[in-house]
């Protein structure tokens, strides 16, 4: 009996230990700033944690963009000073970093974070301190538009296309180019990004006359997907759609192929990065495709110049994340130049009126919901596991 009590006590302790809560906060500190010489720009990125490789890529590109802008005389004569903090790929920490940038560093505008979840966490700060938040890559609809009221969030912006569009593009590609009639969806249950894409893929795929045969979920700590995949493959889908990030997707693809699945795997920009070819042999990656914002193989002179400069500076080919980070930095610089001051509201209005801005990921014009209208590319993998361009899909 003593034993039983002891172990029961243990279990109680276990549950207590497992529950770790993060919290953060700050005090409002209104600061009228009118600095013509230089303006601080906050950068809130995932430099460590689950999606660190994305945050690092964006950080590199943003740093490079600001160096170029300052070397060319600044944004309309205003020097840009980036203030960079790590949010550890954590929602609570993202809120803390945004608060610190807005209240202590008094920045008028923040670039980042990378993921939709972390960006959503920064929304209260943008409204409380009237600081514009420009996410280079947060694709969830709710980042710029309040789901409940349908109103545009006044201080939230993005420079990438939105989730529904990627889900539609992926569904269109699966139904028309791959001629798929059945699809399974494997969703990351921790991620707003993944769930948003699930919904848009499902409705678009059904709109093309296809059938969703199963929807399964995983959680971010999972390393073993074999059991769920075995069941999913048992339904014989033409396509498995995996709207998730490369860390898990790399393992999912390897385990699905190991279990004998030979059908198509389709994903989204979360697949971009080094992990898929690192974990998978090139054979595994055949018949795997994903939607993306840009391709480094483009012959657009602006892209070529960016790719070469990035390679010189960091020794690797810039991913789409890097390209989007680079464009976000330039969009912010363009807005500061047009605002001609470090004033929060002037900069906000300037970002909102961005129109016809030519970046490396396409021409950016922000609509009334603060979303850019751009085209998407579909990428695949060649027989050495390198990304190759497959086709381009235009909005509508």
């Amino acid at each position: 009996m003593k034993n039983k009590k002891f172990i029961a006590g243990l279990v109680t302790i276990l549950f207590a230990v497992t529950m770790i809560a993060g919290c953060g906060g700050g005090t409002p500190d209104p600061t009228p700033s009118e600095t013509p010489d230089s303006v601080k720009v906050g950068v809130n990125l995932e430099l460590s944690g689950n999606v660190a490789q994305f945050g690092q890529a964006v950080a590199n590109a943003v740093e490079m963009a600001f160096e170029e802008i300052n070397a060319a005389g600044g944004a309309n004569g205003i020097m840009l000073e980036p203030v960079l903090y790590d949010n550890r790929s954590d929602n609570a920490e993202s809120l803390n970093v945004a608060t610190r940038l807005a209240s202590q560093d008094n920045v008028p505008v923040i670039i980042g974070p990378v993921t939709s979840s972390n960006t959503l966490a920064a929304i209260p700060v943008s409204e409380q301190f009237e600081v514009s938040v420009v996410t280079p890559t947060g694709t969830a609809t709710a980042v710029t538009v309040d789901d409940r009221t349908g109103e545009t969030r006044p201080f939230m912006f993005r420079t990438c296309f939105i989730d529904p569009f990627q889900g539609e593009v992926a569904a269109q590609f699966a139904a028309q180019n791959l001629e798929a009639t059945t699809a399974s969806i494997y969703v990351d249950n921790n991620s707003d990004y993944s769930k948003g894409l699930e919904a848009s893929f499902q409705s678009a795929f059904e709109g093309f006359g296809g059938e969703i045969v199963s929807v399964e979920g995983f959680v971010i700590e999972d390393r073993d997907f074999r059991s769920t995949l075995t069941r999913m493959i048992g339904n014989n889908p033409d396509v498995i759609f995996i709207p998730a990030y490369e860390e898990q997707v790399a393992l999912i693809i390897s385990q699905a192929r190991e279990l004998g699945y030979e059908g198509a795997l389709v994903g989204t920009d979360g697949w971009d990065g080094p992990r898929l070819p690192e974990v998978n042999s090139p054979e595994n990656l055949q018949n795997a495709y994903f939607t993306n914002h840009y391709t480094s193989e483009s012959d657009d002179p602006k892209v070529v110049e960016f790719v070469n400069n990035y390679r010189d500076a960091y020794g690797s080919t810039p991913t789409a994340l890097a390209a989007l980070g680079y464009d976000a930095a330039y969009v912010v610089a363009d807005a500061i130049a047009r605002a001609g001051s470090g004033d929060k509201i002037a900069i906000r209005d300037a970002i909102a009126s961005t129109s016809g801005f030519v970046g490396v990921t396409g021409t950016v014009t922000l609509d009334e919901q603060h979303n850019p209208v751009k085209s998407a590319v579909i990428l695949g993998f060649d027989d050495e596991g390198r990304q190759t361009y497959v086709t381009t899909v235009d909005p509508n």
Partner: protein
Amino acid sequence: MKNALLFYGVYNRKGVSMDIFIQQVINGLSLGSIYALIALGYTMVYGIIKLINFAHGEIYMIGAYIGFFAITSMGLGFIPALIIAMIGCAILGMAIEKIAYKPLRKSTRIAVLITAIGVSLFLQYTTVFFLRPEPRIFPKILTDGRFNIFGLKAYITYQQLTIFIVTILLVVLLQYIVHFTKTGKAMRAVAFDKDAATLMGINTNNIISITFAIGSALAGAAGVMVGVYYSAINPLMGIMPGLKAFVAAVLGGIGIIPGAFTGGMIMGVIEAMVSGYGNSLYRDAVAFLILIIILIFKPTGLFGKSEREKV
């Protein structure tokens, strides 16, 4: 295998695909082998000093990292990396025992337990600090490939086969050490009655050290195999498998070596079945539900005898 045959009848009659079922059993046994190796360490340490060593999951994690560096920096193959990780973990396990647990041997059990949780967090975040928090890709050192089983559409990969074989070999070796060597006899004596064993001239401190070393070496082996199997390792990877292996040890009857092995295998298969035929998101919930049920209805575990506190 007994389980597989039992389910065979049930599912075959219902007409559920045999291929998928066999595949799930293989998935489950691979995962179960890992749990079993970790659970053995929990159970051995509990058997000898009545301590749930919560740092055990972290020893498994460090084993994975030692294997990783042995392969990437030293260019070693799978077996040498496995052996180095086992030796490294054995030393780490003994060091933890000497530094953290031995000074508390006369303290209350709860004090030692809290210390174990402290050691666990210390190892996690020290690894985060020195080796960075992001996941690392474990190099592919076993060739990709798979066998078809019984002509069905179910496969067993070389990696899974390696895990089974290594696990079985290690468990056989462990049984040999415990039952047929002098050290093993001393271990059983210390587990039975520490004071009496001391009076009989057994150096209990040494025996406790050896127990930690053997248990940790098994966890280290599990770590390297998980690296190979899942291709990715990270500093917090020990938490969940550590807890699951603890459940496995309790399920089999904590302190009982065959119990830990069986418990691990059962846990692995149950998880695969929950993911495969239920909902993968309930998998962890089911694992801990088993713990609660066992504690309520049979706290001594499947292999436990009613005479308490004995091994």
